[in-house]
């Protein structure tokens, strides 16, 4: 134990260029390095799309969703990373009478595989395949939208990511994913959606396609990017006029954002991360502004590749 601690300490002194990464970016952790930390997210909206109709609702006011997520990425090898994430979520409406909700949400586990790299003096090109699994860890209800803390669906995701960087530090990345979503159960024996009543507590969940593009600069411990994410639910109904949202609605959005991550000179291995996104288009979702801040720390369990921990 003591030995490991010493190794960690020593290792971290040299790890300046480390980058924590996520499921859809083009970054990898080196073998036997672990990046872990906490991310705080605050998401707020006042207007939402009832189907395609944009409106507000004075019986909800502003909906705020706060989450504190633990995340970790571990380099199984230089080409294969394991990622885990678990948020605690809390929701609240500023007007009306609806009760706020909070609790541990879904655990995400992912494997990211860098199956192709072409590195020259001036450029780096990488391709990644990602498989992700998520499942709710608690029995929170998905049937209290917009204040449910999640949709309570077990999902499987496959995605493909490409990353291109130049020696100047400029990079572009693109990622597209397909998410299979398992059915969910409600507490009630019947529900109406998509033009028909279903006499069951089980809800068929449509699958989701998403893509993500980002461009920015990444060098010397700094990463700054502008990004855009689009999610399309592949079927599902619209919220009807003055109806409540429903778990299997066709929830689509386009979000534009910016992200900055910076590795502090001291203590080494500690990174701060900040991001903002704004929903530019949507269907059956709130037009939210999301602020995120986090602290991530990188541990290196191996003495090799110290200078190369972030690839």
């Amino acid at each position, binding site marked *: 134990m003591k030995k490991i601690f010493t190794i960690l300490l020593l290792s971290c002194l040299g790890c300046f260029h480390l980058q924590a990464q996520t499921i859809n970016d083009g970054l990898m952790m080196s073998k036997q390095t672990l990046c872990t930390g906490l991310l705080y997210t605050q998401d707020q909206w006042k207007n939402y799309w009832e189907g395609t109709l944009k409106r507000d609702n004075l019986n909800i006011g502003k909906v705020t969703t706060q989450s504190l997520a633990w995340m970790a990425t571990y380099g199984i090898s230089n080409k294969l990373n394991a990622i885990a994430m678990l948020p605690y979520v809390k929701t609240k409406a500023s007007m009306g009478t609806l009760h706020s909700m909070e609790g541990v949400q879904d655990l995400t586990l992912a494997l990211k595989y860098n199956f192709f790299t072409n590195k020259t003096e001036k450029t780096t090109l990488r391709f990644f395949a990602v498989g992700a699994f998520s499942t709710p860890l608690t029995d*929170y209800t998905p049937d209290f939208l917009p204040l449910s803390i999640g949709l309570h669906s077990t999902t499987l995701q496959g995605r493909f990511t490409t990353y291109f960087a130049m020696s100047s530090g400029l990079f572009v990345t693109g990622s597209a994913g397909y998410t299979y979503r398992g*059915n969910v159960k409600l507490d009630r024996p*019947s529900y109406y959606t998509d033009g028909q009543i279903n006499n069951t507590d089980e809800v068929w969940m449509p699958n989701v396609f998403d893509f993500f593009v980002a461009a920015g600069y990444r060098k010397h411990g700094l990463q700054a990017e502008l990004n855009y994410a689009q999610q399309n639910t592949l079927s599902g109904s619209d919220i009807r006029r003055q109806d409540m949202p429903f778990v299997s609605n066709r929830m689509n959005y386009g979000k534009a954002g910016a992200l900055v991550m910076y590795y502090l000179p001291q203590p080494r291995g500690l990174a701060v991360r900040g991001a903002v996104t704004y929903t530019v288009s949507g269907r059956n979702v709130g037009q939210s502004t999301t602020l995120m801040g986090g602290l991530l720390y990188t541990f290196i369990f191996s003495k090799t590749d110290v200078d190369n921990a972030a690839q």
Partner: protein
Amino acid sequence: MKKTFYSAITTALACLLFVTSCDKSISVTEQLTPLKPASVDEDAGNWTMVHMTSNTQVAVPAPAEVTSDAYKAELASLKDIQSKLNANQKKSIEYWAGGGVLRWNQIFRELVARYNLPPAPTAEGTYPAPDAENPFNDPQFPFSNPPYAARSYAYVSTAVYDALKAAWYYKYLYKRPAPYVTDPGVTALVPQSDLPSYPSEDAVMSGAAAEMLKVLFPAALEEITLKAGEQRNAALWSGKATSSDIAAGLALGKSVADLFKARAANDGMRNAIGNKQLWEDLKKNATSRGDVAWASLETPPRPPMLPFFYKVTPFKMTYDDIVAMRPGPPPLTGSGEMNDEVKEVKWYVDNLTRERLAIVHKWADGVGTYTPPGHWNDIAAEHIRDANFSEVRAARAFALLNMGQHNAALACWDTKYFYFNPRPTQLDAAIKTGTGVPNFPSYVSGHSTFSAAAASVLSYLFPEHATEFEADASEAAMSRLYAGIHYRKDCDDGLVLGESVGTFLVNGFAKNDGADD
């Protein structure tokens, strides 16, 4: 390295296999198998009518003899149709074989859920009223909220029930056998029975149910008409009825619907909304008793839901009977008793456990659902199916249930608007609720009243399940306290009121209608 690559590939393949092998189709709980009644209820033509003056109020002419050329031509045409049935037609036969009464109840619940949406506020902060003359507008017509739904379920169920009793009377008067009995060349594609086929019970139902539904849900006219046509076709294609059986049934069903439509047009529903002056008077009634008057918790404030609905004509009871049952008064705002009630509600919302939230949502039956009366139709449907009732006995069960719930709605609305007292959140804004707060006064709880009335009618029909029904009713009642939208007294007194209303119907009508003899 190579090993890692292979393990990644294996994982990816395993994921893919999981995705492709996983069947996401949902299994619906209310499956109906072809109806095979335990009894044909030969004497149902003599059971007491709900609204018709007698079983012959609508005349049905005698059919042509089965030996006549006209009838033989019908059989020939039927055999020709049967020889060319396609997969869709067979599917229709199978669908309607589950029982016409049960199917219409399902269709009905779907319509209620579809139209159970309150008008959205305008930019000026007002709420336009749904307009029957302009049902496709925004807001759509109707807003099938619980009182509207309770009354609708009652009208459709009773119209179908009376129409079927009249049909049974003529069936046994004329005794024309089903085509599959008369002609061995006709195949019975549904379970056979001894029930005479003239007039066709399926056509009677299609006429009565569809004509009532078209008035209640005018914007769904196309879909209702298609369903009705499909039911008649299925009766023909299945070898159960010939075209003259069906024509006579349709005419009878439509005429009976006309009688019920005339009742509905003059039952007081059109005055149920009231106007601003009348709403002010309700407030004055409450303040003159020394209470705080109910106020809408919505922004902008929404007018109270159908405040004069209690004046609508009940089924098999009078308004005086309802007034005699009126409970209360609820404790006055500010009294020690009411303060304790508020405190208890606050405790429940501050301690909204997952188990209690599940109960809240199980019974919420709010916006966009089939409403609490629909929930009890849902519960009843499975018992009616399992009991293998004949169509007419199934219709009786739904008619009794829904008359009871209609009367319960009246009694509950009478009490609510007589006292016009505030919801818990109006007295303590810190009470945040586990479901939406209904936009009408608190005392007594509608869920409690509906549920107890339904449970007492269903307990009469299915005594072996009485304990379940009572447990369900009290769970539904308590769900409103757990949600923070009712005081305990609203629920307790609502249960008592509902039970009284239900028992009144059972003792005053159901037990003496001839069906139990």
